[in-house]
Each structure stands twice: as structure tokens, then as C-alpha cells.
């Protein structure tokens, strides 16, 4: 029987996120005579253990990360909803009734936010490039400026704004917010600023 090869995806996860080289090597060496389920279990356990270690050793950074994530969700998710509503209003102004008649109007709003996922990833990368002490300021600055721009656009392009119902559905808000949170998480993760840990 030929030696078992560990899952390339799991190995890639270890290479990308696990700091402890010796543990990585031990897992790869052990995978030869172990099942795929065992290797995944060990991989997930190692990554969780490292995360817990990071939280325990750098509590201030953890709190800051939670605050930043919350600020992202509130500010940029809100912006996405504003953009989606602006787009729907533009459809109405331009009498794009075929979209309405297709019965997928809500779907169009969601699709319209998809390109902003890329923007979220780029924003996350930009934010991740900042020194950790400046990240909160960067997030707030980014959020405030984006909110202002969204509102200005909204008022410029949509007539009788005060009369327009600005109440997007909870499902739409949730999807858009999750989309942006995911994009920002990916963007920030691509620029890790966590100090190498002694072992884990």
C-alpha cells in the first residue's frame, strides 16, 4: 500500500496560518499512516489552539479586532445597503420595468452589491496595512467618508428622498453585511500583523 498523502487543502491551510514549523512537520509526517479525518481533526485543532493562544497572549489586540469588526459591519454594511437602494431607485427612475416584471428585483439588488465584495477585500487589505494602533481610526475614517459619499449620491440622484421608504428587508441587510464582513476579513487576513508566536 502506498503512503497516504495529506489533503493539499489542509496542508495549504497549515502553511498559511500555522506558525509552528515543527508541528506542521509532525502532522505531515503522521498523515502517512493516518486517515484523512484524523488529519483534518488535527489541522483544525492546531489552528484553534493557535487562535486561543493568540487571544490569551494579546487580549488588547483581540478586543481591538472585535471593535474593528463591529465597526466594519455597521458602517460598511450600511453603505452597501444604501448603494443597493440607490440602484433600485435608479431602476425605477429609468423605468426599467422589465426588471420588476421579472420578479427578481430583490435579487438584482443583491447582485448589485457583489462587485463591492472586491472593494471590501481591497479595503481590508488597505486597513490591514496600517499599524494596529491606527486601524480603528482608519476604519472610522473610511466608514464616515463612505457614508457621506453614499448619502450625497442618494440625495443627488433620487428625487424626494424624504418620501422614499428606506427600509431594506432584514434578509437583504444581513446578506449584504455578511458579504462585506467576509470581504474585509479576507482582505485583512491577507496582511497578517500578528507577531510570530514562540511555538504555536
Amino acid at each position, binding site marked *: 500500500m502506498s503512503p497516504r498523502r495529506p489533503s493539499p487543502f489542509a496542508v495549504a491551510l497549515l502553511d498559511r496560518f500555522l506558525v509552528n*514549523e515543527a508541528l506542521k512537520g509532525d502532522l*505531515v*509526517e*503522521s498523515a502517512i499512516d493516518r486517515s484523512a479525518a484524523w488529519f483534518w481533526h488535527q489541522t483544525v*485543532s492546531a489552528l*484553534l489552539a493557535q487562535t486561543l493562544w493568540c487571544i490569551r497572549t494579546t487580549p488588547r489586540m483581540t478586543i481591538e479586532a472585535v471593535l474593528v469588526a463591529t465597526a466594519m459591519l455597521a458602517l460598511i454594511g450600511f453603505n452597501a445597503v444604501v448603494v443597493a437602494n440607490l440602484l433600485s431607485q435608479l431602476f425605477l427612475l429609468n423605468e426599467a420595468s422589465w426588471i420588476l416584471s421579472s420578479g427578481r428585483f430583490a435579487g438584482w439588488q443583491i447582485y448589485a452589491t457583489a462587485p463591492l465584495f472586491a472593494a471590501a477585500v481591497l479595503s481590508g487589505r488597505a486597513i490591514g496595512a496600517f499599524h494596529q494602533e491606527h486601524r480603528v481610526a482608519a476604519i472610522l475614517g473610511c466608514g464616515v467618508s463612505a457614508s457621506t459619499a453614499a448619502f450625497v449620491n442618494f440625495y443627488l440622484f433620487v428625487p424626494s428622498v424624504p418620501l422614499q421608504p428606506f427600509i431594506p428587508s432584514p434578509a437583504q441587510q444581513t446578506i449584504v453585511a455578511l458579504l462585506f464582513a467576509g470581504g474585509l476579513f479576507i482582505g485583512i487576513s491577507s496582511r497578517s500583523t500578528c507577531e510570530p508566536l514562540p511555538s*504555536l
Partner: protein
Amino acid sequence: MTRDYLTDFELMILLSILRVGDEAYGVPIAREMEVTGGRTVVLSAVYTALDRLEENGLVSSSMGDPTPERGGRAKRFFRVTPTGLKAVRQTRKALTQLWSGLTQLEGGRS
């Protein structure tokens, strides 16, 4: 604060290192714990405990050379320090004293 006693997991790790000898790195230590100790082991938990033991001066470690079967990653070898040996002896003494005279544990199969 440094503890002056060992948990059962730490004790098993130290005993496994002593049983494996000079070639004690993550894989044989975990295997010894599984085979001899009869316990399922998560490698990351072993390393977490080993780091703690090293911080407390009970084990020392050194990096080996990278090997191809490990994807070019080096092994980290562990040795029990004299302080670690002393801790193992103290724990054995304490456990033996706790076990002695317990009539409930005599004569049973499990």
C-alpha cells in the same frame, strides 16, 4: 506563577519523552502516549503542554535538520531536564502515597 505539581497529561508527556529517549520529537512522543498510555492525542495539545513545560524548565528543546518526508520541515527534539526528573519523582511519590492503603482499589480487574 510556577506550579510545583504536574497534571496527568504533563506527566504522561514527560514519561513518554523518557521512554522514547534521544529521538523524542512530536510524532514518537504522541505515538508513545497513544500506544503505551492508551490515550488519543491531539498533537497541538502536546505542543501546548511541551511549551508550558519548557517555560517551567522541566524540558528543553532543540531544532533538528529539515527532512523530506516532513515536507522540508525540521523536527523539534525534547529532553527532560534534571528539574523535570525531580518533578516526575515527586509526582510519583505523591501518587503512590495517595494510592497506598486504599482497600477499594485492591483485587479489582479495572
